[in-house]
C-alpha cells in the first residue's frame, strides 16, 4: 500500500482527519445544545409546571406478602393491617422536642424512642420511620385532631406479618425482619431493586427467606402531587400492587405441634418425610422461639435472651445440628455390605463381647457378647462386634462411597434459607476427607483402626437429622432418593393458578430388592422383638426402625452410668423409622440431645408421630387446643 508511506502526505492526512474530528465534535455539541434549547426554552413551561408548581412523587405501594399455610390449610404466616405513627426525620426540624410534644398526645415509652433511634440510624434520611405501632382507634382520633401541630408526622396504615401459631414450626417458617445492608446486596444481586422500593422487610431465614421472591409480590405505585413542603395534594394515577404468591406446605402443623410437645423441655430434632415424594411432614427443632418477636426489630433484651440461652433455641438442629448417628448407622452398613457383596444375610460371626485390633480393645455394649450373630440379629439386638468386623472388612473408602450415595454428609438441598448457605454438611469420613481436614501430615493419614468405630456410627461420623431422615426414606422408597422439600404448591396471587412443586428425584441407587428386603425385615424385627419393641408394643401397623445412642464423650473403657454423668455429657438418643413397613408413607429420624438410650427417649416420640400420622390418634395428655387458635402476641 504505497499511500501509507509518504511522511508528508501522512501528516497532511492526519491533519485532515483532525479537522474532520473537530467538525464531528462541533456537530455533536451542537446537537446537545439543540436538545438543551428544546428542553429549556421550547418545552420549558411544561417542565416548569412539572417541577415548580406541583411536584409529582411516585409513592410505591408495597404488595401484600404471600400467606403460608400447612397441608391442611391452617395458616402459619399472614398479614394484618394496623395503624402506625411515623416520623419523616428530614421534615421535622427539632426531633427531640417534637417527640416530647407528641408524647403528651400519644403514649410513647422510652423503648419506643430507643427503637426509633436505632431504626433511624440504619435508615436513609428521607424515609418515614415508625415511632409507635398498633395505635388504638382512640389514639388515631386523638392524633388526627392535633395533627396540625406535627408537620412531618403522620398516621399510616401498614401491614404487619404475623405468625398465628407463635413458636410452632418457627425453624421451618423462619421470619421476616427489617432490610439490612446485607439484604440490600442480595436484592441488588437478584436485580430486584425497583421492586423493593418502599419495602422495608425481607425474609431472614427458613421458608420466608428461601421463597422471598415468590412471597414478596410486585410493588405498585401511586403518582401524587406534592407541595413544596412534600405534603401529598392529590393522587393522579394508581397502579395497584400484585400480592405475593401463597405457599402451601407438605408440612402437617398439627403433627408438628404434637411432636414439639412430645419433646417438652428436651433439646433435639425430628424430621419426618414422605419417602415417595420427599415432602417434609414435620421438621422439628426444639426448643423453638417466637418469630413474631423479630418482625418489628427484636429488642436487644429479647435477642440476648434467645442468643445466650444455653439450649440455643435459635439453632435449627434439624438441618444445622450435626451428630454421630450411633447404631442407627448399622442398617446402612448392613445394606452396604450386601450391595458390595461383603456379607450375605446368613453369614454369622461369633461375638465374644469385644473385638481386638492391634492393641485396641473395642467393647460391645453387651458384656460377654451376643453369641452367634447373623445380619438379622446384628440389627435387632444392635450387636457392635458384628459391625467392628464388618467395617474392618469393608475399609473406609467403600463405606464412605456407599454412605455418600445415601446422601449422608451432603447437603440435601431442602428449601430453607438462602440456597445452599443454610444447611450444615456434616462429616462423611474418608481418606480424602482426612487429608483435607487436617494440616499436619501425621494427622492426615487414615489409620485402619479408625475405621472400626465408624462401623457403629461413632468416630468421625457426624450427620444432620435431615440427612438421617432422608437416608431412611431412601431405604423405605426402594433406593430412589428425592430432594426433601417443604412447599407442596405455590398459588399465583394474580391468576389463582396452582404451581405444583414436582417431587425431584435425585438419584436411583439401583438397590437389589432382595437386599432391601433383608434390611426391612431386620428393622421390622427391631420394633417387634428388639430394641424398639417396647416403644412400639401394640401398634396396629407394622413399622421398621432402629435405635441409636451416640457417645458425646469417650468413656475410655469405663462403664456408662447415666445418672452419674452431667446432663450435657450424657449420650444423645437417636431413632430412625418408617411405616407402614410394606408400603411406607412416612420415614423419620429423631434425635434427643443428652437423652441417653435411643430406645428410652427417642423411640416413644417416633411412635407418637406415627400414631398420629397413620391413625389420627392424639397422644394421651396432649393439649387439645385448636391448632388454628391465634395467639395474640404482644410484641416485646
Amino acid at each position, binding site marked *: 500500500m504505497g499511500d501509507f508511506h509518504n511522511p508528508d502526505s501522512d501528516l497532511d492526512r492526519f491533519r485532515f*482527519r483532525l479537522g474532520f*474530528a473537530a467538525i464531528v465534535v462541533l456537530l455533536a455539541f451542537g446537537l*446537545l445544545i439543540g436538545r438543551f434549547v428544546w428542553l429549556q426554552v421550547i418545552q420549558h413551561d411544561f417542565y416548569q409546571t412539572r417541577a415548580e408548581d406541583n411536584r409529582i412523587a*411516585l409513592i410505591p405501594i408495597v404488595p401484600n406478602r404471600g400467606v403460608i399455610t400447612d397441608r391442611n390449610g391452617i395458616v402459619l404466616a399472614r398479614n394484618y393491617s394496623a395503624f402506625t405513627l411515623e416520623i419523616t426525620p428530614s421534615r421535622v426540624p427539632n426531633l427531640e422536642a417534637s417527640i416530647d410534644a407528641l408524647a403528651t398526645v400519644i403514649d410513647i415509652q422510652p423503648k419506643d424512642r430507643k427503637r426509633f433511634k436505632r431504626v433511624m440510624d440504619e435508615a436513609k434520611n428521607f424515609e418515614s420511620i415508625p415511632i409507635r405501632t398498633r395505635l388504638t382507634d382512640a389514639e388515631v382520633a386523638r392524633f388526627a385532631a392535633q395533627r396540625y401541630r406535627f408537620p412531618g408526622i403522620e398516621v399510616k396504615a401498614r401491614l404487619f406479618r404475623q405468625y398465628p401459631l407463635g413458636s410452632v414450626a418457627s425453624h421451618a417458617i423462619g421470619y421476616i425482619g427489617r432490610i439490612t445492608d446485607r439484604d440490600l446486596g442480595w436484592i441488588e444481586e437478584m436485580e430486584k431493586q425497583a421492586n423493593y422500593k418502599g419495602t422495608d422487610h425481607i425474609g431472614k431465614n427458613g421458608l420466608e427467606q428461601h421463597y422471598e421472591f415468590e412471597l414478596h409480590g410486585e410493588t405498585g405505585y401511586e403518582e401524587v402531587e406534592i407541595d413544596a413542603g412534600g405534603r401529598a395534594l392529590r393522587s393522579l394515577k394508581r397502579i395497584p400492587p400484585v400480592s405475593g404468591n401463597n405457599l402451601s406446605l407438605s408440612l402437617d402443623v398439627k403433627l408438628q405441634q404434637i411432636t414439639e410437645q412430645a419433646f417438652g423441655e428436651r433439646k433435639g430434632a425430628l424430621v419426618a418425610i414422605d419417602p415417595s415424594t420427599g415432602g417434609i411432614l414435620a421438621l422439628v427443632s426444639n426448643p423453638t422461639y417466637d418469630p413474631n418477636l423479630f418482625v418489628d426489630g427484636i429488642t436487644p433484651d429479647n435477642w440476648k435472651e434467645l442468643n445466650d440461652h444455653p439450649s440455643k433455641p435459635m439453632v435449627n438442629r434439624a438441618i444445622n445440628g450435626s451428630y454421630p448417628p450411633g447404631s442407627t448407622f448399622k442398617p446402612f452398613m448392613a445394606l452396604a455390605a450386601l450391595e458390595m457383596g461383603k456379607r450375605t444375610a446368613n453369614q454369622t460371626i461369633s461375638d465374644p463381647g469385644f473385638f481386638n485390633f492391634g492393641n485396641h480393645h473395642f467393647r460391645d455394649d453387651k458384656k460377654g457378647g451376643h453369641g452367634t450373630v447373623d445380619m438379622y440379629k446384628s440389627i435387632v439386638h444392635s450387636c457392635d462386634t458384628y459391625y467392628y468386623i464388618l467395617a474392618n472388612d469393608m475399609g473406609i473408602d467403600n463405606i464412605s462411597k456407599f454412605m455418600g450415595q445415601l446422601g449422608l454428609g451432603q447437603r440435601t438441598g431442602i428449601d430453607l434459607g438462602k440456597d445452599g448457605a443454610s444447611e450444615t454438611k456434616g462429616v462423611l469420613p474418608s481418606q480424602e476427607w482426612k487429608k483435607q481436614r487436617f494440616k499436619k501430615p501425621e494427622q492426615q493419614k487414615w489409620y485402619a483402626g479408625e475405621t472400626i468405630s465408624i462401623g457403629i456410627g461413632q468416630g468421625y461420623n457426624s450427620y444432620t437429622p435431615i440427612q438421617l431422615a432422608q437416608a431412611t426414606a431412601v431405604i423405605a422408597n426402594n433406593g430412589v432418593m428425592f430432594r426433601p422439600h417443604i412447599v407442596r404448591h405455590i398459588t399465583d396471587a394474580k391468576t389463582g393458578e396452582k404451581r405444583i412443586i414436582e417431587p425431584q428425584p435425585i438419584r436411583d441407587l439401583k438397590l437389589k430388592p432382595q437386599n432391601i428386603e433383608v434390611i426391612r425385615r431386620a428393622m421390622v424385627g427391631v420394633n417387634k422383638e428388639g430394641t424398639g419393641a417396647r416403644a412400639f408394643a401394640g401398634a396396629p401397623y407394622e413399622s421398621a426402625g432402629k435405635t441409636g445412642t451416640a457417645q458425646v464423650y469417650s468413656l475410655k473403657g469405663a462403664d456408662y452410668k447415666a445418672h452419674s454423668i452431667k446432663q450435657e455429657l450424657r449420650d444423645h438418643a437417636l431413632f430412625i423409622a418408617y411405616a407402614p413397613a410394606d408400603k411406607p408413607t412416612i420415614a423419620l429420624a429423631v434425635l434427643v440431645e443428652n437423652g441417653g438410650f435411643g430406645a428410652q427417649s427417642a423411640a416413644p416420640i417416633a411412635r407418637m408421630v406415627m400414631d398420629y400420622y397413620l391413625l389420627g390418634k392424639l397422644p394421651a395428655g396432649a393439649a387439645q387446643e385448636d391448632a388454628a387458635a391465634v395467639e395474640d402476641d404482644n410484641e416485646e
Partner: protein
Amino acid sequence: MIDIPGTLRRGWRELVAHIDFPLLLITMAIMAVGLATVYSATFDGNERIFSQAGNMGVALVIMWFVSRLPPQKLMSFAIPLYLLGLILLIAVFLFGIKVNGAKRWLPLGFTRIQPSEMMKIAMPLMLAWYFQKFEATLGFKHFFVACLLLIVPFALIAKQPDLGTALLVGGAGFFVIFFAGLPWKVIVGLGAAGAAAAPMLWNVLHDYQRKRILTLIDPTTDPLGAGYHIIQSTIAIGSGGTFGKGFLNGTQTHLEFIPEKHTDFIFAVYSEEWGLLGNAVLVFLYTLLIARGLIIASSAPTLFSRLLAGAVTLGFFTYAFINMGMVSGILPVVGVPLPFMSYGGTALVTLFVGIGILMSIHTHRMLVKK
C-alpha cells in the same frame, strides 16, 4: 552572594517548565464549576466538597509528574501497561467479585481494584506505540493487528458488564486507528456492517441494558426503575429554563428527585441551577479543551505523539458527550462520569493522566526536533 529572587525565578520556571497554561486554565475552570455543583448537590446531606478538592489536588500532582515524562519514556510504558491491564482484566473475568450485578473488581486482599480504568490510558498508548513501531511499513496487516489489540480488552470489559467503560476504552483505541489512517472505505464498511448487525447486538445485550434503551424511547414504561432517572433529570434540565433557578435553588436536586446527583447525574444539578446559559458556558469550555488538545496533536512531532494526543483529546469528548447525552435523555444510561465535574477520585486521576500526556507531548516537542 546568593541571588534569591533569581533562584526563586529559576525554581518556578523549572516547576512549570512542562505545564501548558491554556490546558491548565481550561481544566481549572471546569473543575471550579464542578466543585460548586458538588457542593450544591451534597450540602444538605453528606458533604463531599472537601474530599473532592482533595481528589483534585492529588490528580494535579499526578498530572505534573506525567507532564515531565518525555514521550520516549511514555512509549516505554506502552507494552508493560497494556499487558498488565490485559492480565488484570482476565483475572477479573476469572476471579472478579460481583458488585451490583457486574464483575468489575479484582480483590487484592487489603483492597480491590478496577483494572478497566487503567485501560483507558493503556489502550491508546499501546496502539500509538504499535503504529509508531511499524510507521515505515504500515499496511493492512497492521490495522488488522491493531483491531485485535483493541477488541480483546473491549470485549472483556463489555462482558463484565460495564458498557460505559467499554465505550470509552473502545473509543480511545478507535481514535488512534482512525488517525493512523484507517481507509475511509473500511470505516464506511464497518459502519454499514454495524448498522446491519444492530438487531443481533440487541440479542447480546443484558436485560438491564435493553431496558435502558427501551426506557430511552419511552421512559414511562419503567417509572420506578431505569426510567425514573431519565424522567427526573429531564425535568431538572427543562425546568432550569434559560437562566436557571439559581445556585442552591434547584428543587429537583434538593427534594431528592435526582439520583446519583453528585456523580453520574451531576449535569442535571448544574443545568437546573444555571439553565441554558450555564450549559452553553460548560459546552464552550469543553470545546476549548478539545480545541487545545487537537492543536497539540496537530503540532506534535512524531507519529506516536500525534496519535496519542489526538486519541486522548477525543476521549475527553466521548466522556462529555455520552454523559450530557444520557442525562438529557438522548443516549441510554451508561455509567460514564462528566469529565472534571463528577465526584470521584479514580476517574479524575485518569483524566489528569491524559492532561499530563498532552502537556508532555506539547512541551517536549522542541527537544525532539533538536
